[in-house]
């Protein structure tokens, strides 16, 4: 069966290319046959004319024979397809307004879908840019219950894991670092990373230039080596291959450059803005095994051996965790180890919002399809006679269907092509407004995958809306259509149209509700009081290299010096320093002990977020002092140690007692509580506020080399940036200042992701509202035009204009209400699905539901009011004269 089908196909394929020559053969063959028949009849005694006629009669219709042969020898569908295509182009060109409307609607739908899909694809679907990425996992320390949250990894724990596991072919640690590059123009801060020597091998990355780290370079030593990112090599250094083997000065130490990463390398766990420029072996400066197990500076990557199943690997990790827990109870008690696939790790935070966006834009596309289907239906009505004539002339229904489908596919492909243009423009714009915390945006582009997707949805939409008129033409009898004047509203057709309108309204309502809920959440988010005042505040970070600022004294001297100078700048009201700016995404928790309370059970402790700050910080950033005092310059290194706590911490640990004057200790140092300040949203605006404690920079044992300078200005904060820079370089020429931003910009970056999704969804829903109302308008308009004669008669026999208006609007209202009911159901389901994206709004927020329903109903009624008005303006005489 297969073979014979194949042979037929081959014969047809041959026919496609070799027709002319074979046709000639065939003609001679027929001619000969006829000739012989004629001869035979003549021999039987007929006259030549009679013989000719008899022969022709016996042989049959030569034309239809030729046709059949042609059909058998050519690929019929391709051949007729060409004809259909030419015909379609003619039809569409004749009807420019119609074609324009359809193509534009489709282009909007397909363009928006393509643009969002390209983001979705780049972030969620594309395989990670590493070798066999599905075998790479990240390993996390899992805190003891009840917290159970995942934590970065202590250096010594990493060393133990690597030594004791069998499931992995490789394991590597990744830590952060900051470097100041000097000797190449202005001193510049470079984001750095410290990695195990096997890190790039594990990922399967080949260097653009030079080589990977050697294992012997990943231990304490004096010959420091570094690998540079492609952009650092190009922008900061010469960009020439001779860079290999030369030394660069980083934090006043010499590093030999051994390799340069390829330009497309991306550390997928970091955002696009946060890619390291300098990579150094992590054990170059530190003894990994001697670092405290209480400090967790590393992220750990591992490659699972191909034959090891995930659960066996996890079982092995569980055993090791139990061992480490009993060996080092003070830091590891109750802790587990959790493996998460790298891909899952990268996408876990963005999957939900992006999926919601893709769903939203898909709904928009559906509405556009419904509209186009409606337009096609109207046109099919106008073309009924054409179709009937063609049917009567002997076209098969299949051929007609093929013709209609060709037309709609042509439309959808035109729409798709235009949509692609729109999408590529949209991606350019999107690229600028995409939230900073989306990973993997470097992969964002219109590539083959996106093209394939666009082609696919174009075809799918073409078939989807092309089917509607097809479905109709099936049920029609050619005879009847030819007889009737197009004056009766066809039952089936009206039904389908009504269904389309109801669907459009329902989908538009779902989109509007989603957008409404997100917009309300975003509004709430913007109006969360962050606990500080953002206006007129400028922030900037400095990096103090260990070489020139080896100890607390030197750092403290720099800090008081810089504050002194900054405060004397014109336009500055106050200035302060902090280690971790709120909403910066950086935080650190410390355990503390309250004096005079019974000890807690082993393995548990009181924990609060800990932030070293300078005098002047609270008033500068606008954190209110509730009671007691803030820090002053009197709180020097030699003065009694003090601490300021926030309201949350007071409530949690002291309740109604007054904590001022009480003592607590952390980092092994006892401190007196001298003040209470207001709570701050440190992690995120939508998160809970946490217990926090502040200590002066001068009284902390560990050095803080990357403080943020915060200044409150009386003038435009942007205007003091240059002064700030001068003040810092006045103290130390080799200190770069980076991340110079106003606090407003800073907060705006922190809400960029919710803003992005809200804006987009609102845009989609407005577009949906417009398209859906155009759809309603079109349908009502059509219905009215079909009934014009009826209206004329009714007016003539005494109906008032109001009667007619009410009649039309009643029909519209039925559709709108049906759509709203369906839409509310859909919205409720959607709202439940996006609960995680909402803030300060319940998923079934009645206000939002009612408001968007009313809005949609009003717009839809307005859209049907215009054609209804037309119905009332009918002049009975004119309409009746149509007869």
């Amino acid at each position, binding site marked *: 069966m297969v073979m014979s089908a194949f042979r037929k196909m081959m014969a047809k394929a041959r026919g496609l290319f070799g027709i002319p020559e074979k046709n000639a053969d065939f003609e001679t*063959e027929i001619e000969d046959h006829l000739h012989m028949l004629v001869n035979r009849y003549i021999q039987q005694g007929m006259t030549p004319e009679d013989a000719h006629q008899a022969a022709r009669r016996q042989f049959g219709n030569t034309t239809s024979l030729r046709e059949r042969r042609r059909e*058998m020898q050519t690929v019929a569908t391709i051949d007729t397809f060409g004809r259909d295509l030419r015909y379609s182009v003619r039809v569409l060109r004749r009807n420019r307004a119609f074609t324009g409307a359809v193509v534009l609607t489709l282009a909007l739908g397909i363009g928006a879908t393509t643009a969002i899909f390209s983001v979705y694809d780049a972030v969620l679907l594309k395989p990670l840019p590493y070798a066999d990425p599905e075998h790479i996992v990240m390993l996390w320390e899992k805190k003891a219950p009840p917290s159970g949250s995942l934590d970065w990894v202590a250096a010594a724990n990493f060393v133990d894991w690597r030594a004791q596991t069998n499931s992995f072919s490789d394991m590597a640690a990744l830590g952060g670092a900051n470097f100041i590059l000097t000797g190449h123009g202005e001193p510049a801060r470079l984001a750095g990373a410290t990695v195990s020597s096997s890190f790039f091998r594990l990922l399967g990355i080949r260097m653009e230039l030079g080589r990977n780290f050697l294992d012997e370079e990943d231990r304490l030593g004096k010959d420091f080596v570094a690998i540079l990112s492609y952009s650092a090599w190009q922008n900061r250094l010469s960009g020439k291959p001779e860079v290999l083997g030369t030394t660069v000065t980083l934090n006043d130490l010499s590093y030999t450059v051994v390799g340069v990463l390829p330009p497309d390398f991306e550390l997928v766990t970091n955002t696009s803005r946060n890619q390291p420029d300098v990579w150094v072996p992590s054990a170059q400066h530190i003894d990994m095994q001697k670092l405290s197990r209480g400090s967790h500076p590393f992220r750990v990557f591992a490659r699972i051996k191909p034959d090891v199943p995930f659960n066996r690997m996890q079982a092995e990790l569980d055993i090791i965790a139990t061992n480490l827990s009993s060996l080092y109870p003070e830091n590891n008690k109750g802790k587990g180890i959790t493996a998460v696939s790298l891909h899952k790790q990268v996408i876990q935070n963005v999957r939900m919002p992006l999926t919601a966006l893709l769903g939203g834009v898909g709904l928009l596309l559906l509405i556009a399809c419904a509209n186009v289907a409606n337009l096609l239906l109207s046109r099919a009505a106008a073309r009924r006679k054409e179709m009937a004539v063609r049917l009567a002339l002997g076209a098969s229904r299949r051929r007609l269907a093929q013709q209609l489908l060709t037309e709609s596919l042509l439309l959808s492909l035109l729409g798709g092509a235009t949509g692609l243009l729109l999408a590529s423009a949209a991606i350019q714009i999107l690229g600028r407004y995409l939230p900073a915390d989306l990973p993997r945006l470097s992969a964002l582009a219109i590539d083959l995958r996106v093209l394939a997707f666009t082609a696919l949805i174009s075809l799918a939409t073409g078939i989807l809306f092309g089917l509607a008129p097809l479905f109709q033409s099936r049920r029609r009898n050619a005879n009847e259509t030819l007889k009737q004047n197009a004056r009766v509203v066809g039952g089936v057709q009206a039904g389908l149209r009504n269904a389309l309108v109801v669907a459009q309204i329902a989908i538009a309502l779902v989109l509007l509700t989603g957008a409404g809920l997100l917009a309300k959440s975003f509004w709430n988010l913007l109006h969360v009081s962050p606990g500080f005042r953002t206006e007129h505040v400028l922030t900037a970070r400095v990096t103090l290299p260990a070489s020139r600022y080896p100890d607390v004294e030197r750092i403290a001297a720099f800090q008081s010096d810089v504050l002194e100078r900054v405060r004397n700048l014109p336009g500055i009201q106050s200035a302060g320093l902090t280690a971790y700016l709120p909403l910066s995404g950086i935080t650190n928790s410390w355990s503390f002990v309250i004096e005079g309370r019974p000890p807690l059970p082993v393995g548990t402790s009181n924990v609060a977020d800990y932030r070293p700050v300078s005098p002047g910080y609270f008033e500068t950033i606008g954190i209110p002092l509730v009671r007691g005092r803030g820090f002053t310059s009197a709180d020097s290194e030699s003065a009694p140690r003090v601490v300021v706590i926030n309201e949350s911490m007071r409530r949690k640990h002291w309740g109604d007692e007054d904590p001022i004057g009480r003592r607590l200790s952390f980092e092994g140092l006892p401190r007196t509580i001298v003040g209470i300040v207001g709570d701050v949203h440190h992690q995120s605006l939508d998160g809970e506020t946490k217990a926090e404690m502040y200590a002066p920079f001068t009284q902390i044992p560990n050095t803080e080399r990357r403080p943020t300078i915060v200044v409150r200005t009386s003038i435009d904060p942007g205007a003091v940036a240059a002064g700030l820079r001068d003040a810092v370089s006045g103290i130390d020429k080799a200190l770069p200042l980076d991340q110079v931003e106003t606090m407003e910009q800073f907060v705006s970056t922190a809400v960029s992701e919710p803003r992005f999704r809200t804006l987009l969804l609102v845009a989609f829903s407005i577009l949906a509202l417009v398209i859906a109302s155009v759809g309603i308008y079109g349908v009502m308009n059509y219905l009215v035009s079909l009934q014009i004669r009826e209206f004329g008669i009714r007016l003539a026999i005494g109906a008032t204009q109001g009667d007619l208006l009410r009649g039309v609007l009643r029909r519209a209202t039925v559709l709108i209400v049906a759509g709203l009911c369906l839409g509310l159901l859909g919205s409720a389901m959607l709202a439940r699905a996006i609960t995680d994206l909402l803030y300060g709004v319940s998923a079934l927020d009645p206000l939002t539901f009612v408001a968007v329903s009313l809005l949609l109903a009003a717009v839809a009624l307005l859209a049907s009011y215009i054609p209804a008005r037309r119905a009332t303006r009918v002049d009975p005489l004119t309409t009746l004269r149509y007869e």
Partner: protein
Amino acid sequence: MILKTLEALGPLHGFGIARRIEQVSEAVLKLNEGTVYTSLLRLQQQGWIAADWGTSENNRKAKFYSITKSGLKQLARETTDWEQISGVIGRVLRLEGQK
């Protein structure tokens, strides 16, 4: 039928096949002879017959069709099928008759 004809008489041209069918069916099957060519083309596409140019009895160039190996196989298959079916129908008819 064409296959059977070609098997029995060897290579033939279209006119010959038409005559043979006319003769065998004793003019019971009165078809337009042109349709023979459609069938010939179909059989050719299936690969059951092959065509070759030769000279006809009255010295004209003509296309001669002959049966191929796979055509013979197909003929055998169809013959058994037909015999089975006609056998069954025959038995059924006989049963009817006995009633």
